[in-house]
């Protein structure tokens, strides 16, 4: 701080060992400290073991760094089975000597202490395992089990200190896991010995929804994201969702695709949405959001593109039935398999569960078009900042894949339709606002384009009808500088028609 200009940065950044875990490398600025131990702590079931195993598997697969997993709690068979079910089967890597698993059993009842001892046996085992495959990474999960087997904690503590120092001189990047203790990060205060990097995991239940969080508590010699970041675990392992670090590096497409409503195409530059863009359709209850979403999906199917519809409010059958009432038949799309509807109550799984399911399905089905109806319902499963982070991730993820996505959002406050509660509008390229106005005893539906990046778009608030023959945008009718809507428009049109002496042409009836 004192003389920043005169002294160039001589201090080398801490060398890092990438975890290969999505998001974690972003938060830590490249991974865990290379050649040093990192403590990962948290309560039972928080994902410590999975994170540690993924660190090893990614290391062996992607970075040519063989690893040793030393389990103090689970047998090799149990461990292998658990991880195989997560898509992290260690066996193929073990067969190629890229990974080795060792189970160190600490059986309290078997051990009688009869004098002075040290933990050289453990050291020798670890060294043997490391040297056998030339390991660069090691996991000790969880070494605190030693405290249950050996009663002389004074010796044990001195030996643990020696162990971590030995690992440093050995130059292996280590993950040491520890269970959270009362008032301590770990039960036996391992944080006292491992000060290079400490990561805390948390698995908490808020309003009956389980969410996982990760936080880098400290990282000596390196900057790091200090916030809690949501993370989730699915078949492809762990994904951390850093809230702040979003890369905007996806390529953009100049090609356009129809909104499904020709009149609406006219309003957004005459050609429809950009491919790979994100569209927000917000509006109050019953304002026609799902109808617009339905048109969008159906148009994709007509182009013979696959569409994925995530429904968080209605079942698939309900959506198809309701859309049929406005003359939109999704049945053929569903039958051809071009359209797939995935309906789920937002509360059926935690936030990370939804995101992971959506990621997975988009990855698997490779749709060109995705609908999330409505995104506002996900608020039910998380507080705002999480929904925002989750959305940002999902949007980024789809943009990278050039998937065009339409999100509907329920506006609670009639007066301020722009105040979308999740604050997600900045992620959106096109924003359509639907209103359901109550005027002089009649309900009038209007639609306008609040924004549409990169294209000329209409600035008019257009009235539209949902009829049995479909969604119809009405021509703008002006009278003395005012845009007329509802029955005022109908009356005006009728008068015009009379004046034109063409009584057979009637105003559209609602």
């Amino acid at each position, binding site marked *: 701080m004192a003389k920043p200009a005169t002294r160039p940065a001589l201090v080398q950044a801490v060398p890092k060992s990438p975890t290969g875990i999505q998001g974690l490398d972003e938060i830590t600025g490249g991974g865990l400290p290379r050649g040093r131990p990192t403590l990962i702590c948290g309560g039972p079931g928080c994902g410590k073991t999975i994170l540690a195993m993924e660190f090893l598997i990614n290391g062996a697969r992607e970075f040519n760094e063989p690893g040793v997993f030393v389990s103090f709690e689970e047998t090799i068979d149990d461990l292998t089975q658990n991880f195989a079910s997560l898509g992290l089967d260690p066996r193929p890597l073990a067969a190629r000597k890229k990974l080795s698993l*060792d189970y*160190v*059993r*600490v*059986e*309290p*009842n*078997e*051990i*009688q*202490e*009869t*004098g*002075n*001892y*040290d*933990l*050289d*046996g*453990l050291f*020798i*085992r670890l*060294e*043997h395992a490391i040297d056998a495959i030339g390991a660069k990474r090691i996991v000790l999960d969880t070494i605190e089990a*030693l405290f249950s*087997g*050996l*009663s002389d904690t004074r010796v044990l503590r001195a030996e643990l200190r020696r162990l971590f120092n030995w690992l440093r001189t050995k130059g292996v990047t280590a993950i040491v896991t520890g269970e959270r203790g009362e008032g301590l990060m770990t039960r036996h205060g391992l944080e006292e010995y491992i000060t290079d990097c400490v990561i805390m995991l948390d698995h908490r239940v808020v309003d009956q929804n389980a969410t996982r969080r990760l936080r880098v508590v400290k990282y000596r010699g390196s900057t790091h994201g200090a916030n809690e970041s949501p993370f989730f675990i699915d078949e492809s392992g762990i994904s951390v969702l850093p809230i702040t670090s979003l890369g905007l590096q996806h390529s953009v497409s100049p090609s356009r695709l129809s909104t499904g409503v020709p009149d609406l195409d006219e309003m957004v530059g005459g050609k429809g949405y950009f491919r790979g863009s994100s569209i927000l359709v917000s509006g109050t209850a019953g304002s026609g959001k799902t109808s617009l979403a339905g048109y969008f999906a159906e148009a994709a199917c007509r182009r013979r593109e696959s569409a994925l519809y995530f429904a968080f409010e209605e079942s698939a059958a309900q959506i198809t039935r309701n859309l049929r009432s406005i003359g939109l038949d999704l049945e053929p799309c569903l039958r051809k398999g071009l359209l797939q509807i995935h309906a789920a109550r937002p509360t059926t799984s935690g936030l990370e569960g939804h995101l992971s399911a959506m990621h997975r399905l988009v990855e698997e089905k490779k749709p060109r078009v995705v609908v999330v109806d409505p995104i506002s319902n996900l608020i039910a499963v998380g507080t705002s900042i999480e929904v925002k982070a989750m959305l940002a991730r999902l949007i980024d993820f789809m943009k990278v894949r050039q998937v065009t996505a339409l999100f509907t959002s329920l506006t609670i406050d009639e007066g301020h339709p722009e105040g979308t509660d999740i604050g997600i509008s900045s992620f959106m390229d096109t924003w359509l606002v639907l209103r359901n106005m109550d005027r002089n005893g009649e309900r009038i539906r209007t639609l306008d384009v609040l924004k549409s990046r990169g294209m000329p778009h209409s600035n008019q608030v257009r009235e539209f009808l949902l009829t049995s023959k479909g969604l119809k945008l009405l021509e703008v009718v002006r009278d003395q500088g005012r845009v007329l809507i509802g029955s005022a428009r109908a009356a005006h049109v009728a008068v015009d028609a009379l004046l034109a002496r063409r009584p057979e042409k009637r105003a559209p009836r609602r």
Partner: protein
Amino acid sequence: MSPKSARRARKPGKARAAGDGDFYDLRLYIAGQTARSLAALANLQKICDEHLEGRYRIEVIDLLERPQLARGDQILALPTLVRKLPEPIRKLVGDLSNTERALVGLDLRPRSPATS
């Protein structure tokens, strides 16, 4: 905890004195010829001479020479004495300088409730 206390409760009530007539197959794990290793071996030899004359076998395993053997008997601390026979397997950690505890660990002396 419960298996331990169950065993404690059962042992003293056993009819015959522990270890009577059984053959003792013992393995002493060490790492190099350190003072502690040598002490452990000397202490073990003394116990065997006094309590197990003619019915024991001691195998010394130096893990510096054969590190792969640490896995089989789940060795962590050194020195460790493993009683392979008679069953059940018993593990004694340390240099056996506490003869009382060593005898209890080998079932050559009944466990008193005070011994932990």
